C-alpha cells in the first residue's frame, strides 16, 4: 500500500502526537500524547479511522503544508483560519485535497491547539517518517459531530496530596484563586501569575510523583500546572490537581487568559 506524503513547507509550532499516552513512564518518560485528547481523538473519528492514530498538533500558530497526493483531511480544535490554496476551510468536517495544494494556518483566533488528521499519509518530522493514517476501507459518510472549544475560564480542581500543608487562609486563597496564565508555557507546564499563597507547614525536601494536571506550589508562592510532557517526579508540594476533563479545557486556553479555580469538594 502506498502512503502519500504531506510535507511541512513552513513550520509553525507543531508536533506530531499520539492520541494515547506513553506506556513507559517507569523509565522516566513523560505521559505525553495530545494536549487536548478530545479534539485529537475526534479528528480521527471524523475520518473514520482508528482513534489511536497519530495527528498533527499545532499550538498557537499554524503551519504550511504541501500535499504530495490526493487525500482526505480534517481539522478540529482552535480556529487558526486554515486556508487551502487561499480559500478558507471549515473546522470539524472532512475535506478532500488534491496533489500540489497547500494548507496554511495562522495565529489562533479562538482556542490554543488545532489537530489535523489525514487518511493514508506519512510525514517527515525530526528526521523520522511518521505514519499519520492508514488506508481507509470504510466508507461511512458523515459523522455527526460537534466539537466545541471551552468557553469557560472557570476550571474545576481537586484537593492534591499536599492540600493539608495549607492553613485555612491558604486554602481559601486557592479556592478563590483568580490568576493569569503566563507566557511561560509549553508542553511541560504553565506558570500562573496571581496572588501569593504560602504553606503553613514545611514540605520535606524530597521528590514526589507528579502527573499531568497537578498544580505545584513554587517557593515564591506562585502556582504551576504541570502538563503532558512534564517530568515524572518533582520536588514541590502538589496542592491541587485538574482532572482529565479540566486539563483538556485548560490546554485550549491561551497565555494571558484570566482563569479562576473552583474546588470540587
Amino acid at each position, binding site marked *: 500500500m502506498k502512503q502519500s506524503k504531506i510535507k511541512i513547507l513552513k513550520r509553525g509550532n507543531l508536533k506530531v502526537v499520539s492520541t494515547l499516552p506513553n506506556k513507559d*513512564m*517507569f*523509565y*522516566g518518560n513523560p505521559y505525553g500524547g495530545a494536549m487536548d485528547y478530545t479534539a485529537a481523538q475526534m479528528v480521527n473519528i471524523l475520518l473514520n479511522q482508528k482513534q489511536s492514530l497519530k495527528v498533527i498538533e499545532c499550538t498557537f500558530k499554524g503551519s504550511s503544508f504541501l500535499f504530495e497526493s490526493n487525500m482526505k483531511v480534517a481539522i478540529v480544535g482552535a480556529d487558526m483560519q486554515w486556508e487551502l490554496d487561499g480559500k478558507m476551510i471549515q473546522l470539524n468536517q472532512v475535506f478532500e485535497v488534491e496533489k500540489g495544494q497547500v494548507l496554511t494556518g495562522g495565529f489562533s483566533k479562538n482556542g490554543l491547539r488545532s489537530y489535523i488528521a489525514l487518511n493514508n499519509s506519512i510525514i517527515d518530522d525530526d528526521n523520522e517518517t511518521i505514519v499519520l493514517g492508514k488506508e481507509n476501507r470504510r466508507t461511512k459518510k458523515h459523522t455527526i459531530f460537534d466539537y466545541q472549544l471551552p468557553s469557560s475560564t472557570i476550571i474545576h480542581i481537586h484537593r492534591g*496530596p499536599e492540600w493539608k500543608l495549607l492553613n485555612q487562609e491558604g486554602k481559601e486563597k486557592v479556592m478563590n484563586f483568580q490568576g493569569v496564565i503566563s507566557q511561560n508555557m509549553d508542553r511541560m507546564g504553565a506558570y500562573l501569575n496571581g496572588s501569593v499563597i504560602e504553606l503553613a507547614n514545611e514540605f520535606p525536601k*524530597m521528590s*514526589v510523583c507528579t502527573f499531568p494536571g497537578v498544580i505545584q506550589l513554587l517557593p515564591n508562592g506562585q502556582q504551576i500546572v504541570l502538563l503532558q510532557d512534564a517530568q515524572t517526579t518533582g520536588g514541590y508540594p502538589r496542592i491541587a490537581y485538574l482532572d*482529565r476533563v479540566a486539563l483538556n479545557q485548560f490546554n485550549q486556553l491561551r497565555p494571558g487568559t484570566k482563569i479562576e479555580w473552583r474546588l470540587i469538594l
Partner: protein
Amino acid sequence: MEQIKILGNAFDVLTIGEDKLLLQLNKSLKQIEDSIPLISQTIVNEEFKQLENIVSSETELLLYCQQSKQVQLLKQLSQMEAPISRSDENEIFIDVCFELSEDWERVINNIGQDKETIIDEILKQSYRLINYGFQPGFMYLDGLDEKLHVPRLDNPRLEVPAGSLAIGGKYLGVYGSNSPGGWNIIGRTQHIYKRLNQKDLPKISQEIRFIRLTKEQYLRKHK
C-alpha cells in the same frame, strides 16, 4: 482513606482523578528499609494488564489504572509475593571514561581531594539502581560515600549529553537522554538507555559497578 499492604509495607491509598492511584508509605508503621525500588520493580515484572503506567518516588507509587479496574489491581498487589532471588542477581558493569567531562574542578574543590583519589573511591563501591526518573532513562544510583557528596549546580546546564555520569547531592546519576541538568558531570558512559531494549535495561535494585576506560580505550570501544 484506604490502606493496602504490599510485600509487608503499609501504604495509604489516594484516588487521583478517574485513572490514577497514589500509594504513600505509611510512616507510622514499621517499614522495610528502602523497599520502594524493590516493590516497583516487582510490580513491573508482574506485567499486570490493568496497570497502564507506574511511577515511583522515594516514598510513593503512582499507578495509572482505570477506575473500573482499581479494586482488582489493589487486590493483586496485596497478594504479590517477593521475588526469591534478589541478592543473587549479578552485578552490572558499565564502562566509564573520566576524561570527557566538565565539572571536575568544581567536584575537586567541593570534596577537597585530587581527581585520581576521587575516581578510586568511586570505583571501589557498587551502586544500587533505585529509580529511573526525571528524564527518559535517567538512573538514580544509591551508595555514594558521604565524603563524595557534591551539591547540584546553582544554574542547571541547558544540555547534558546522554550517558553522562554525574554527582547530584548524595546520588550518582546516569543521564538517559540529552537533556538539561544540574548535576556535576564527572564521566561519560556508553548510552545504554538508547542501546538496549527495555527488557534488557538494568533492573531497579540491581547493583552497578563502574569500569574505568582511558579516553582512547573508550572511544575505540564505544564509537
